[in-house]
């Protein structure tokens, strides 16, 4: 940094009291205390992102920075049911472990607080190391503030037959609450598992700083579902960062229908030849909701591939942001990167900002990307009406079909049905569309 810049630099912003309070309540062994302190300092140095931050240009956080959030609040809870899904489940209420159901054998699923306390090596090795600190300031803040979470430690060669479901409930109806759910997954060589992160509300205002880090060793395969159906008063700032070694596969499904402001930074490093990531995302927003999906794939070595399909449905005065970055690093020959983003605007007042970004520094690569924004296809609408389907119904049906193209990629049937119902429930004529699904 030059002298001139240093002189012009503003003094460090003082952290809001609620962050200081949450940080004071966070504890752990020395290495974690050090990590937390460094994280807090780093966050203090940059502060909350503003409009001048390129990565946050379209997402205004004033609604969050104006408020304060209480940490560690208890609340009575009920686990949202997903019909047909019966699997090991951990339930967190405002960042505290509240309930566990049917844990798998082999102690592969642990409370993160417990794993840290007992010195589980994966914690020190991986926590805060997958989500690049310079890019993910809310992951850094989450590291400073988190109380508990989940460590999923899959030994080499293991296959978890049943999915593991993690339910994160936020809010308590009285205070605006803060929750910092933290998930750490170490998938050993050739291990396989399905993980569900389910974010929902208990009512009232809440801020979730949700950070998940996935480390996939050679040949590992993780199917990851992220369902965010928080209440319209909630704020959700999520980071999902993954690093994939040779021939590892990550399939990521991301459904975002809730929260007043929801942001997910999905960041995948393909670090071994043959690594593959599939990213399926759907955001459905209405009223004054705001959904922001920032995805980034780093193709670091030869012969890696990524396949991304993100779609959005916007009604009312809602707003969405999609930014999809694919970086093909020098020497990453044989990269195959595909990306598609499509948006359906159901109202004249809805707005979407979509930006695919390709950076290619290698030869012999296949890259395809496209972004579209539009209204319903009038030819399809007329076709349905000409078959006796009422116009409103035809509109809902086409809207659902547009969204379902993404959900159809979900392999886990009970979850796909749940996701479809969440989407259908946000459309007019929900009952009639259900007959089609």
């Amino acid at each position: 940094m030059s002298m001139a810049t240093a002189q012009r630099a503003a003094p460090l912003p003082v952290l809001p009291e609620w962050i200081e309070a949450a940080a004071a309540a966070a504890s752990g062994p020395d290495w974690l205390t050090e990590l937390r302190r460094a994280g807090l300092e780093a966050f203090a140095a940059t502060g909350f992102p503003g409009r001048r931050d390129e990565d946050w240009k379209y997402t205004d956080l004033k609604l969050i920075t104006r408020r304060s959030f209480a940490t560690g609040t208890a609340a009575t809870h009920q686990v949202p049911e997903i019909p047909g899904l019966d699997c090991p489940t951990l339930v967190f209420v405002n960042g505290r472990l509240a309930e566990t159901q049917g844990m798998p054998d082999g102690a592969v699923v642990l409370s993160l607080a417990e794993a840290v306390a007992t010195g589980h090596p994966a914690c020190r090795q991986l926590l805060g190391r997958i989500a690049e600190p310079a890019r993910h300031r809310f992951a850094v803040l989450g590291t400073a503030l988190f109380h508990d979470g989940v460590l999923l430690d899959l030994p080499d060669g293991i296959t978890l037959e049943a999915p593991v479901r993690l339910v994160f409930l936020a809010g308590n109806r009285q205070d605006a609450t803060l929750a910092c759910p933290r998930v750490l997954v170490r998938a050993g060589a050739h291990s396989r598992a399905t993980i569900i992160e389910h974010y929902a509300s208990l009512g009232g205002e809440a801020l979730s700083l949700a950070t998940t880090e996935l480390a996939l060793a050679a040949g590992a395969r993780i199917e990851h579902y992220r369902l965010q159906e928080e209440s319209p008063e909630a704020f959700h700032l999520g980071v999902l960062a993954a690093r994939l070694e040779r021939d590892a596969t990550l399939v990521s499904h991301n459904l975002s229908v809730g929260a007043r402001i929801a942001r997910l930074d999905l960041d995948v490093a393909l670090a071994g030849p043959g690594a593959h990531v599939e990213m399926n995302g759907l955001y459905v927003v209405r009223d004054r909701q705001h959904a922001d999906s920032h995805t980034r794939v780093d193709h670091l070595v030869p012969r890696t591939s990524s396949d991304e399909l993100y779609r959005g449905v916007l009604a009312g005065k809602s707003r969405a942001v999609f930014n999809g970055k694919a970086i093909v690093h020098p020497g990453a020959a044989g990269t195959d990167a595909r990306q598609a983003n499509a948006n359906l605007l159901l109202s004249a007042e809805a707005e979407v900002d979509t930006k695919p970004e390709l950076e290619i520094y290698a030869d012999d690569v296949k890259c395809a990307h496209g972004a579209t924004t539009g209204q319903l296809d009038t030819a399809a609408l007329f076709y349905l009406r000409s078959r006796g389907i009422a116009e409103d119904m035809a509109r809902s049906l086409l809207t659902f079909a547009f969204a379902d193209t993404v959900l159809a990629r979900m392999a886990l049937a009970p979850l796909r049905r749940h996701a479809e119902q969440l989407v259908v429930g946000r459309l007019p004529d929900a009952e009639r569309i259900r007959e089609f699904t």
Partner: protein
Amino acid sequence: MLSIKNLSARAGDHDILKELSLEVGPGEVHAIMGPNGSGKSTLAGVLAGRPDLEVTGGSVSYRGHDLLAMEPEERAREGVFLAFQYPVEIPGVNNVYLLKAALNALRKHRGESELDAFEFLALVKDKMKLMQMDDSFLNRGVNEGFSGGEKKRNEVLQMAVLEPTLAVLDETDSGLDIDALKVVANGVNSLRSAERSMVVVTHYQRLLDYIVPDFVHVLSGGRIVRTGGRELALELEERGYDWLRDGADAA
């Protein structure tokens, strides 16, 4: 059944139909022929209520009702069916669910009970046999990835299930090889009855070898310039359309 009087219609800035009149009685099959751009598909589209076409004059009465005052879905429920020249692909909307919803919308409108899944499937499978379609069609998206011939078969399958009172076929023969044409024609012929009228729009005489019309009309410059029996179609095949086009201009 259908009485079209001095119908004028435009698409965007282009006047296409110009005071066209046509009477179709119950059980009659009328073929509408004519060169490209004569207004054949516009006529079919206006009858079905295509929203991008603007009626600028005239009237259309269907079974005593003002057809032009009805929404497209109301027309369908009243028994009007358009077999599209270019059936639309709708990924994500299941072919068989659409058909079931369409049939039940119609039955509900008539005050009949809705068919349950079992009854419906039996009916569809029966009609699919007629159209020589295999079961895989059931679970695909509407026209999704269908070949041109499959799309046309699917149109006639829908028509066979919905059993319209007035069927308008818009160039259902285009893009079909002779075998597919026979299947499609066979499907259409099986629906001929004393209560059902058909308007068959085609560019080529060939279709009329298989679907034999009661009347043949030649459309040129947005109006009907000649009406005759089946022999008119044969004459058109021999002489082309030019002699009529000239006659229309002179008239």
